[in-house]
């Protein structure tokens, strides 16, 4: 390859890279490919933690994500609701993110209808609570105090699913779908150790490395990080493929993600090669 070409490659307009990245995402979506993958140990632990919850009991889900983390976390959120409703586990849910209610309520309603679950008896959504760490403290101490009414204004005392569940430690498992702060870190710092809670987390890829030490230390019983975490969970919940009317968005995206990564690795290798070859040539000229 000529030296001029390598120099031009290094000084290439960055918009060509954006275009290339766009194509690396769009082409595998339009022409789908399927690559095999192995389920991560941390995601398997998350799945096993849900499997250990006795049928008919109730778990608490803190759905702390918004539009910015939706592509990574909604597939996990959907898969875990399928898993819980299928096992006849009841759900008490709330959020610490103001942007979450319009995202999560329609998903609850859609999947509750699919599995014939009734609001108030099999699941409830307590809505949004401001206060970040203080709100988490309140969830640890007294949920009816933190959320006197649910998201539609029903007093929590009138919700059948809430009977016998006054504070976080009453739940056999707490699942935190965490798009950032407040989220998993705050739950672990504020109430996990104090009440010795079983907390599982699904989080974004950005937060994943920060939460791995929590999993290693046993402060989290399971962890699904980013789009791959969601895809692995989908694989565990639907090992024989999706039933009718279910779309495995993370599994589909996982294959696209692989092509995107391959494109970036290619650029890094090519960029470094071009840099070292041109530098060597310049040194020889000098």
């Amino acid at each position, binding site marked *: 390859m000529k030296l001029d070409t390598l120099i031009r490659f290094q000084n290439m307009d960055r*918009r060509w890279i*954006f275009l290339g*990245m*766009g194509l690396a*995402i*769009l082409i595998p*979506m*339009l022409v789908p490919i399927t690559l095999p993958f192995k389920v*991560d*140990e941390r995601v398997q632990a998350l799945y096993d933690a849900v499997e250990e919850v006795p049928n008919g009991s109730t778990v608490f889900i803190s759905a702390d994500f918004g539009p*910015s983390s*939706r*592509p*990574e976390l909604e597939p996990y959120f959907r898969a875990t609701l399928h898993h819980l409703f299928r096992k006849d586990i009841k759900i008490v849910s709330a959020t610490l993110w*103001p*942007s979450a*209610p319009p995202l999560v309520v329609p998903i609850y309603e859609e999947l509750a209808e699919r599995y014939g679950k009734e609001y108030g008896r099999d699941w409830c959504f307590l*809505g*949004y*609570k*401001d*206060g970040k*760490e*203080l709100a988490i*403290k309140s969830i640890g101490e007294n949920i009816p105090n933190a959320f*006197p*009414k649910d998201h539609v204004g029903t007093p929590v005392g009138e919700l059948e699913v809430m009977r016998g569940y006054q504070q976080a430690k009453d739940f056999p498992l707490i699942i935190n779908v965490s798009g950032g702060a407040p989220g998993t870190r*705050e739950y*672990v*710092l*504020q109430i*996990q*150790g*104090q009440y010795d809670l079983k907390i599982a987390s699904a989080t*974004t*890829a*950005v937060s*994943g*490395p*920060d939460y791995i*030490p*929590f999993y*290693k*230390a*046993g*402060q989290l019983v399971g962890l699904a*990080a*980013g*789009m*791959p975490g969601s895809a692995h969970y989908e694989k565990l919940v639907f090992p024989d493929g999706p039933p009718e*009317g279910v*779309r495995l*968005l993370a599994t*589909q*995206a996982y294959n*696209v*993600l692989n092509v*995107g*990564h391959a494109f*970036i690795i290619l650029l890094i290798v090519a960029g470094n090669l071009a840099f070292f070859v041109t530098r060597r040539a310049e040194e020889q000229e000098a």
Partner: protein
Amino acid sequence: MSGIEIAGAWLSIFLTLCVLSFLYDDNPIYKLAEHIFLGVSIGYGVIEIYFGVFKPNLLDKLIDGTTAQQVLAVVPLVMIACLFAKLDKKRAWLARFPIAFIVAAFAGVKLTGQLNANLMTQVAESIPNIPEVWAEYGLWSWEADGAGVLSSIFLVIGLSACLLHFYFSAPQSKTMQKISRFGVLVLMLSFGASFGYTVMGRISLAIGRAQEMLGLDRPPEEVAVIHPKMATLICLVIVIGFLIAWRKRQGDGHEPAN
């Protein structure tokens, strides 16, 4: 689906493309989307906090609560009033009381959690039980992503080297410099892993938008009504057409901002 829902789906696709047009250059159509986003976000946040926090926790208690609730609700009300004293220079000092309360409460709440969960537990976990690890994984387990005695020893040595790198009081002898360099190497590995995850997160977000623009995240009956692919194509033509017209107006001397 109602007409508003269909219009909303088209608008969402149009605004996504407007934002992506920033990759070409900073331009008015991107600014339009940015300002709409900011305005809607702030408006939504205000409404959500008013109905989710301010009304049930303060107004409802003041108006419909018991006498005890009303008396207690006066405390945050007075604190809010004190915060607004910032607007008047003479009475601005009043705002210090609620701010001091907020800072003290958060410091207290954060401190215990940090010490217990982030420091003590993590320090305890960084000293692995070698016989237990050997019994569970052996020297190195490919099935468990490399867990084993080797990884545990590397963890302890890496952690110690990182801590010694930040131990500035020690004289920088040759041995210390070597340990410090190893610590830097371990830090770089850690930053690399974090950066890799960050890149993956960003690509995931792009995939999420692409899924919406191609209608892959909707059930077939909704796709048949919305026609997301057609919406994407039409919006793309509009955005590209605008960028061409805008570029012509800017002239040849214009330099990209990003």
